[in-house]
């Protein structure tokens, strides 16, 4: 890699760099050889970094005005909305930013699934990514509790009650989590504390995520190993930075559309009713991004079974690199897996929809079908298809579209555009 040869030009620069090689790091980041054929699905890494930074900055400002107390939380949010200069803007960016963050992370994850970015040698990047996703869900859930509206309170009640399903110690664990005998002021206080902590844990993991990425380098739409640097790569700056910036601006247009013109459309109106332990809302639903897992939770008639299944649905992703037996990374060359990929996308959307519906009748049946398929995909489809599938021939390099086995030359390109 190029940073080994890098030497600062100035004497001061060299003196400093010999002691702390920050300039070498900067040089590595700008020169970092990146596959030149990355498509726009690869821009979501940069977009996610933007989301994290935005959430942290707006969150810090909100925390200057927010009061984490059961009697004051709701009023302090209204105070932010009405009396703090541009408080409404900061809060709407933060609340919609959470949704945008998840939208981007879901695209990022499914991109990885489609192009096999989780496979060797990138398993550690993938595992760190799943840990980030887990922490994101924890942070988002606790953040949603902070305004102390009806959905905040009852969402917290439902989710924390899940732990009471654990045999023998469940009740004690729940009480310990609450810091009280029900969701109450101590619960709100600790959720605020953790909600402030978790983003910085995420930030640390993001650094590891990128570090781990820079060891093997980016995967690419063709999914083959490439020489770095070579005519298949471009320096990260300016080529990838400007492309990421372009994609980020498009993303910001959508983001701003929500913030300025429909700031509450992704939330639930019940959360503008102050928390009331005596009144249960008709339907308790989590935010949209947690709905697929909520559906899986409710698909099992037994509480403990539901909890185990819900957590398995996430943790199964950790062993994904070893469940997939195919040596070919990109689905562009996997005609059978490609179809199962889209079925999985539809399945997750279906589960998300079912999570918002009452768990009864046809909804419950469909939820169960969706849940079973979700696990079938990872436990059966992935290993079996990997063995049985006859993959299409791979090109030798990104620049030379010559296929091993001499198949259709334009194949890779054509498919690439369709995705």
């Amino acid at each position: 890699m190029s940073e080994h040869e890098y030497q600062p030009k100035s004497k001061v620069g060299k003196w400093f760099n010999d002691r702390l090689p920050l300039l070498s790091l900067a040089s590595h980041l700008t020169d970092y050889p990146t596959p030149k054929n990355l498509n726009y699905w690869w821009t979501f890494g940069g977009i996610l970094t933007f989301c994290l930074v935005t959430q942290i900055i707006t969150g810090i400002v909100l925390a200057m005005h927010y009061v984490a107390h059961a009697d004051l939380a709701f009023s302090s949010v209204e105070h932010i909305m009405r009396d703090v200069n541009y408080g409404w803007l900061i809060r709407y960016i933060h609340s919609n930013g959470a949704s945008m963050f998840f939208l981007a992370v879901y695209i990022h994850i499914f991109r990885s699934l489609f192009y096999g970015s989780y496979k060797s040698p990138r398993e550690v990047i993938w595992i760190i990514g799943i840990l980030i996703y887990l922490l994101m869900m924890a942070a988002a859930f606790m953040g949603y509790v902070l305004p102390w509206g009806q959905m905040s309170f009852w969402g917290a009640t439902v989710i924390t009650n899940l732990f009471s399903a654990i045999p023998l110690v469940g009740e004690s664990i729940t009480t310990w989590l609450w810091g009280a005998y029900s969701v109450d002021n101590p619960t709100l206080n600790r959720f605020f504390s953790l909600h402030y902590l978790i983003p910085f844990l995420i930030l640390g993991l993001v650094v590891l995520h990128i570090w781990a990425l820079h060891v093997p380098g980016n995967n690419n739409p063709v999914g083959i190993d490439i020489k770095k640097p070579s005519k298949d790569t471009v320096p990260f700056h300016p080529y990838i930075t400007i492309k990421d910036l372009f994609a980020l601006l498009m993303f910001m247009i959508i983001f701003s559309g929500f913030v300025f013109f429909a700031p509450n459309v992704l939330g639930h109106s019940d959360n503008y009713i102050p928390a009331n332990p005596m009144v249960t809302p008709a339907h308790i639903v989590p935010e949209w991004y947690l709905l697929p897992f909520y559906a899986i939770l409710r698909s099992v008639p037994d509480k403990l079974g539901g909890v185990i299944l819900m957590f398995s649905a996430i943790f199964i992703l950790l062993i994904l690199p070893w469940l997939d037996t195919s040596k070919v990374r990109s689905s562009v060359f996997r005609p059978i897996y490609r179809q199962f990929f889209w079925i999985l996308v539809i399945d997750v959307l279906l589960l998300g929809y079912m999570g918002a519906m009452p768990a009864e009748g046809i909804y419950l049946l469909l939820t169960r079908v969706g849940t079973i398929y979700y696990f079938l995909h990872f436990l059966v489809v992935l290993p079996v298809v990997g063995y049985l599938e006859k993959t299409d021939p791979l090109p030798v390099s990104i620049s030379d579209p010559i296929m091993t086995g001499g198949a259709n030359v334009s194949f890779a390109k054509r498919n690439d555009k369709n995705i």
Partner: protein
Amino acid sequence: MIKISNIFLKTIIFSFLISFKTFSAEAIDPIKVDWSFKGLTGKFDRSSLQRGFQVYKEVCSSCHSMKYLSYRNLGEPGGPEFTEKEVKAIAASFEVTDGPDSQGEMFLRPGRPADKFVNPYPNNQAAMAANGGAYPPDMSVLVKARKGGADYIYSVLLGYEEKPAEMILDDGVYYNKYMAGNKIKMPKVLSDGLVDYADGTNSTEEQMARDVTTFLSWAAEPELEERHRTGVKVMIYLILLTILVYLSMKRLWSRIDTEV
């Protein structure tokens, strides 16, 4: 295959969106009103806000609190925009409990623009006792706290009808065709000519419902006009910047033999 699944996907998402609407309806759909504050550049109708405040003050405020608003808000840009003199007069027409004074006693004084809207009841229990066990909700964010928003509030105000013969209602419970479950503890309050509008507008039931709902929408989202205005500017800026960055990107990547 990929193209077909793409179309399939879009069809599924689309049908979800449609079915969402039909399945989630509990009561009948509220009346659709063409509010002036809807849309990308929507603004409140200033005179409607002022009339709406009058309806709130003379009718609603005897039971409903509005504790997150201050009298000064009534004079701020984007709201009813009463003059400074009017705001002072409005505030002074309310009695505010202040204190304790140097003798340790609480005392009453005329309101000031900086005061929060005065609560009609000293506490929730008093409010419930006076209203047959139902607590009249605080109206500060009511429009945001109800599915259907302004349309829903407007509809409920006009939704009082004779109950169907087979329906049995307890004392102090009324039939309302837009309310979830069709039962409401608030009696029908609006009737033609109830309020003498200061600007001479004919105070029909529909007019009052429209005005007070406009007022409540502003109360829930006092930042709405500024938000819309800023939003349009932000959008224009982002779109122009996106075009510039796109052109620069094309220029830069023209050195590389790959499409960007």
